[in-house]
């Protein structure tokens, strides 16, 4: 296959194969000349007609606004395969799972640390949610099919290989990567569903955060290879099982340090109750919410540059004491009433000299890609708190209780407000909205 120098797609476009960037059981992946497209060449045994049908199905889907690498065109015979967008500056999330043998903590921090992993996983979950919202199942969530930004300061996540998408749950058409298959899919009793995607996502989340597979504990590590098959099929307890300690894990990063209590709870519901009853598994939406919330609750370490949960008094990676934290409480505000209580709490974020960039997910309660736009930057400074609006927008600052009398517009030049008792309004003050209450208000 490597002798092929160019392929032609169904529209007649010629794609010169410039560089092989991957190979596996299904075939090879090539970067096309020009650097903007990839060509996936399936093995000769591939069913060209099935691929064409699958491709037509995927192309009918409205995938706008999702971070999924859309196939662009099917190849003309004699080749079997398709052309898709190339994801520049990205790598498989596997690169964040395979820890080096030495200096794991330094590597963990250099590759973005805890906060980045939480945020990346949330973004993976959002892409899966988007597919589920369009009535399709991804089927093959795995460390190979999820791509994340290569630069560690960026948190983009994309799904590739959309030829796996299904809109029906047929046990004969199951597809999974070993270690990621839900028990009912591995057993062949059920087809792929959104709940089998949720299982695979839970595996990926646990593995990415703790650096160990949720079913590969000390028992499996020390046992025969067959034991791993049993573990992947869910016939052994997961490493965090509440009552069955047979497969506890003494390697990887401690779950209590890298998963907040609520994330561990989601994992438990997935890998215990959800083992035999898939309806007990939490959906991906719950994972997304809690992953974002957990990422919001991390602070940076001035010593090692790592990130950790604000509930710790010292950095778990280097023991540097946690820096002072000022609470930023997200609340509701109405023009005539001021701060009002709602049915649900909107959360509290820890502010340090590292600063907070509030996205529109926090400031306006949006979800998906549009929610990732940075809206406000808040930084603790010597004499108070610096507030700056981002992305060409404006925000307003006002003393708590004085929002109708005294308020000041803030654009891209920061204004300094006192460290306590002021609010940041994210929209024009004449409308009900979310606000950030800085510090204490008593």
């Amino acid at each position, binding site marked *: 296959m490597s002798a092929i120098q160019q392929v032609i797609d169904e529209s007649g476009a010629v794609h010169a194969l410039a560089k092989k960037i991957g190979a596996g059981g299904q075939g090879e992946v090539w970067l096309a000349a020009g650097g903007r497209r990839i060509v996936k060449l399936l093995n000769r045994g591939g069913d060209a007609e099935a691929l064409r049908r699958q491709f037509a199905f995927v192309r009918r889907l409205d995938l706008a606004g999702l971070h999924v690498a859309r196939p662009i065109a099917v190849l003309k015979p004699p080749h079997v395969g398709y052309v898709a967008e190339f*994801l*520049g500056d990205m790598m498989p999330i596997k690169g964040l799972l395979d820890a080096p043998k030495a200096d794991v903590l330094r590597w963990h921090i250099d590759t973005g640390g805890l906060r980045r992993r939480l945020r990346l996983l949330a973004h993976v979950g959002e892409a899966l949610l988007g597919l589920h919202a369009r009535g399709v199942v991804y089927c093959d969530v795995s460390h190979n099919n999820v791509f994340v930004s*290569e630069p560690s300061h*960026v948190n*983009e996540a994309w799904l590739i290989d959309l030829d796996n998408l299904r809109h029906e749950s047929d046990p004969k058409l199951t597809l999974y990567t070993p270690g990621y298959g839900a028990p009912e899919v591995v057993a062949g009793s059920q087809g792929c569903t959104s709940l089998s995607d949720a299982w695979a996502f839970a595996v990926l989340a646990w593995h990415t955060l703790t650096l160990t597979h949720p079913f590969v504990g000390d028992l499996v590590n020390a046992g025969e290879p067959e034991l791993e098959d049993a573990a992947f099929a869910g016939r052994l307890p997961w490493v965090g099982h509440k009552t069955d300690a047979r497969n506890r894990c003494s390697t990887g990063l401690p779950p209590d340090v890298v998963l907040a209590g609520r994330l561990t709870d989601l994992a438990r519901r997935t890998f215990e109750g959800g083992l035999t009853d898939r309806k007990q598994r939490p959906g991906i939406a719950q994972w997304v919410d809690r992953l974002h919330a957990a990422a919001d609750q991390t602070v940076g370490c001035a010593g090692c540059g790592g990130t950790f949960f604000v509930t710790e008094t010292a950095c778990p990676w280097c023991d540097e004491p946690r820096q002072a934290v000022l609470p930023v409480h997200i609340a509701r505000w109405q023009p005539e009433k001021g701060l009002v209580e709602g049915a649900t709490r909107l959360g509290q974020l820890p502010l340090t000299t590292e600063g907070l960039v509030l996205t529109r997910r926090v400031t306006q309660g949006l979800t998906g890609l549009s929610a990732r736009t940075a809206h406000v930057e808040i930084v603790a400074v010597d004499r108070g708190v610096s507030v700056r609006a981002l992305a060409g927008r404006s925000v307003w600052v006002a003393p708590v209780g004085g929002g109708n009398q*005294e308020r*000041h517009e803030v654009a891209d030049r920061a204004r300094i407000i006192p460290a306590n008792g002021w609010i940041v309004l994210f929209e024009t003050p004449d409308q009900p909205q979310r606000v950030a209450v800085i510090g204490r208000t008593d």
Partner: protein
Amino acid sequence: MASRDSLGSPFDRDTAVLRFKAGKDPNARWVLWPIFTWRVVAPVPRERKINLFQRAVLGLARAKVTAIVELADRLLIAPDLAALVVTELQTMSLLGHAGDLTQRGLRMLDDIEDDPPDEAQVGHIISDGFTGKLWPRFLSGDLPVADVEANEDGWPVMLSGSAGDPWRDWVFCVLPSGRDTLISTRPSATEVLRAARRHRRQRDVDDIDDERDVPRLQRVSFVDDQPAPYLLALRVRRHESGDWMVDDPFGHGEAIELRARLEERLDTHNGLRSWLAPLLAADSTAPTLADLQAEATWKVEERLTLTIRQYDDVRQRLVAMQRALLEAQSQDAPPDKWDDVLVKAQRAVERALYMVYRQHRNAREALFSQLAQSDKDFNRGLLDAVAADLGFRAPLPVTLSSVRRGKVQNAEQGGGGSLRPWLVLGLLCADRDEEHPLRRAGRTTPELLHRLDELATARDRAAHDGAASWPQKVQRHVDTAYTAIEALLLLQ
């Protein structure tokens, strides 16, 4: 002249954006400018492998005309020139030693005769949407339409970077308003050729690293009767000199004319000035008084937070002080400007002390009466003891502890007086009031009274005929004023 009024304006927020330069520059500002593009097709003459005389001599050689004199005669050129041409062709192995045609020469002639005369090159030229003026640029090939997404208000945001490291540039759209007339007159062929020629010349001068070639054109034809409207992305950024500049969208350095166009619209196009404000602030031209006032307001709020707005009398005096400081710091300010800063700094502190006194006074008992009428030692002892009790460094400077009782009385009863009487009044008041802010100031800044006394001394010197104020010292007195006001009004 073809013109369009705004009712039929082809420009709106959905108009396609042309962008020639990408890259991450968080400090730049992007402005979208309306342009018209005209698609033209032009025959581009092929590069000749041999020149006209060489071709003619080869042709004659094929007809067995090889003698120099005969060649010169038939071509109506001097024999010397004919000999030179023959020598050149022999060097190129197109003619043999005897002037006869070689196989290679024969192939060359065949190639030339088989070549199509010219290539057709499609390109675009650009005219300004507002003025209709043709830009001296010729864009060969396709136009670089930018990837954009709409923000929630429907305005374009330019996308660049990669999937793994995307980058967004927010933009300001200069869309023609109802008052604007758009001009889209089709340029003449001569104007197009001149634009291409000027672009080519400019590329030679600037040594541009650009894949787009600017061909040598001799004729052009317009493909479309009407131009296509686009918004051209202009990058506005800071020049090394501190001034602001507009990048030439095609990579030819600074676009002075485009900057002039933007300047024309700064105050007529709503929002443009504020969009470019972070860059305009660095304009090397002298700031106006309004600029200084605005900058001083920012500085005061940065130093004392927005809480200072609750004490507007003091804030106004601080802004005056800060503005005077900015004026004094300007390059051509006379030295006496520094004196103004001291006068205004003292006024700000006096006002803060007055406000604190009004809040904490006890109307039933006059404070000044604690001071002796003429016993300076008694007064010094009393004030030193009070200052020490409050946590301030003691003894106090004599200039402060020997303020006459009459001046303190004047401050207390008449609201007048200068800094030192107000400080004494504050000390006496704080001695009786557990909540007085000077108590907290004593604990946090024990040197404060000494520093304020130094400010009063410097101000007296500045107000009367004395030596000029030293800039470094003035800056320290300004800090003292801020510290005092922060302690008196804000640290609660």
